[in-house]
């Protein structure tokens, strides 16, 4: 990056370089995001980067938040995932749909890392068809009672509270649930391809009682409003996560090819290596341009922002996978060895094409948009 006007983003780059990049491989291997990193992030306001100041936030605008996410994500995908969950999914949902009391209770706690949240949407049998959640709720007096199971929930292994999406006779609602509520069992998952230190877990809810004031938004608005908001914020974060991986992979590819010699010359002098580098540069710049555009529209609260964010996420995640793949290819056998970071970047890139809506879902949405926007009844 040659132009980082926002001082918070510049500081984040230095923090990432000093504190995150040297530990990213170890974090991945040990499958744990160290508490001291979480605390350092909180002290700098990084868990609440977009929150209003009254809730302990840095009030970063969307474009700056994007560059901030890229800097963190370049250095450590798991730390970036923490930001995606706390700031985008949880923070975004609470800021838009929370009551004054809910915001005051949870947002400052996230900002200080006193409490961490997790967004519990996905289930063993419910992924892309998110509206079909099976975890149930029913109202009983002044309480709601939850029963069911969630799976693949990032940071639920260490979260203090969850936003839980549940259904009652086809009506989907969102609830804030304290982890200490009776009837909750959290089972960490291991053996994952990527996000190994994102504390992904299953959560079992057995007759979990929560007070009525823990409803987030309106009853029946859980999918239409809360989930849609969370996924929109999440996709924006993932678009920049993809840019971060692509940028890191490109830098690794360039460094390796400028130092590795085969057939009596640096491999960067071989045209087919140059072709991969050329494509990586072009695709990275294009992905970043799409994400900046989405950020500008989000800042302007444009009605076009949601679709441009979808396009940015779709493209940037593809670019991340492509560039990470070519980075491994450039490294040859070394790219298949966990002593070289590109091995980790390759795994981490794949996940971005699946989470916050698979690439196939994004294609469906973009196709629907294109079939309207670019249709000329008469030519």
């Amino acid at each position, binding site marked *: 990056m040659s132009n980082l006007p926002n001082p918070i983003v510049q500081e984040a780059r230095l923090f990432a370089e000093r504190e995150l990049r040297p530990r990213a491989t170890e974090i991945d291997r040990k499958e744990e995001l160290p508490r001291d990193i979480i605390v350092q992030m909180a002290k700098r306001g990084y868990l609440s980067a977009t929150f209003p100041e009254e809730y302990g936030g840095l009030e970063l605008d969307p474009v700056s938040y994007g560059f901030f996410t890229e800097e963190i994500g370049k250095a450590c995908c798991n730390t970036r995932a923490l930001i995606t969950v706390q700031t985008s999914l949880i923070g975004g949902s609470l800021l838009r*749909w929370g*009551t004054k009391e809910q915001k005051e209770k949870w947002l400052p706690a996230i900002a200080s890392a006193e409490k961490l949240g997790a967004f519990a949407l996905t289930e063993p049998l419910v992924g892309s068809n998110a*509206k079909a959640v099976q975890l149930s709720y029913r109202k009983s007096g002044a309480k709601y009672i939850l029963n069911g199971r969630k799976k693949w929930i990032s940071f639920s292994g260490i979260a203090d509270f969850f936003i839980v999406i549940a259904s009652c006779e086809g009506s989907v609602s969102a609830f804030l649930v304290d982890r200490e509520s009776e009837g909750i069992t959290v089972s960490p998952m291991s053996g994952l391809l990527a996000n190994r230190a994102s504390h992904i877990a299953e959560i079992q809810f057995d007759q979990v009682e929560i007070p009525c004031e823990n409803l987030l*938004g*309106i009853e*029946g*608005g859980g*999918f*239409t*409003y809360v989930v*849609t*908001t969370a996924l*929109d914020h999440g996709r924006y974060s993932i678009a920049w996560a993809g840019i971060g991986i692509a940028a890191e992979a490109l830098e690794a590819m360039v460094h390796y090819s400028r130092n590795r010699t085969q057939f009596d010359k640096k491999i960067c002098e071989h045209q087919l290596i140059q072709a991969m580098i050329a494509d990586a540069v072009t695709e990275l710049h294009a992905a970043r341009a799409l994400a900046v555009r989405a950020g500008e529209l989000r800042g302007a*609260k*444009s*009605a076009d*922002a*949601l679709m441009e964010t979808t396009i940015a996420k779709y493209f940037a995640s593809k670019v991340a996978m492509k560039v990470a793949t070519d980075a491994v290819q450039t490294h040859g056998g070394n790219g298949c060895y966990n002593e070289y970071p590109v091995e980790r970047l390759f795994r981490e890139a794949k996940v971005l094409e699946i989470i916050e809506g698979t690439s196939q879902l994004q294609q469906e*949405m973009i196709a*629907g948009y294109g*079939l*309207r*926007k670019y*249709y000329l*009844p008469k030519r």
Partner: protein
Amino acid sequence: MTLLTEAGMREKVRSYIAANLVVYDEEVVFSDEDNIFALGFVNSLFAMQLLTFVEQEFDIVVDNDDMEIINFSSVSNIVNLVQKKKAGA
């Protein structure tokens, strides 16, 4: 900001909905009273886009109390909501 007549509001809302239909039949027509969600003309993701459009276009804030999907289900219901919010309700 130019004051919009009710007819002007209806036209803006109708145009926005028409530009975001998920059906591609050129013959599709909908009245101001038609429930666009029940008829399958838009999908459930559109509700959030519609909310953002209504807040930005008409400079109103939609509270949780107004979030029932019925308020966004037809041109008439949307205009009624906007007028209610403009009147300070």
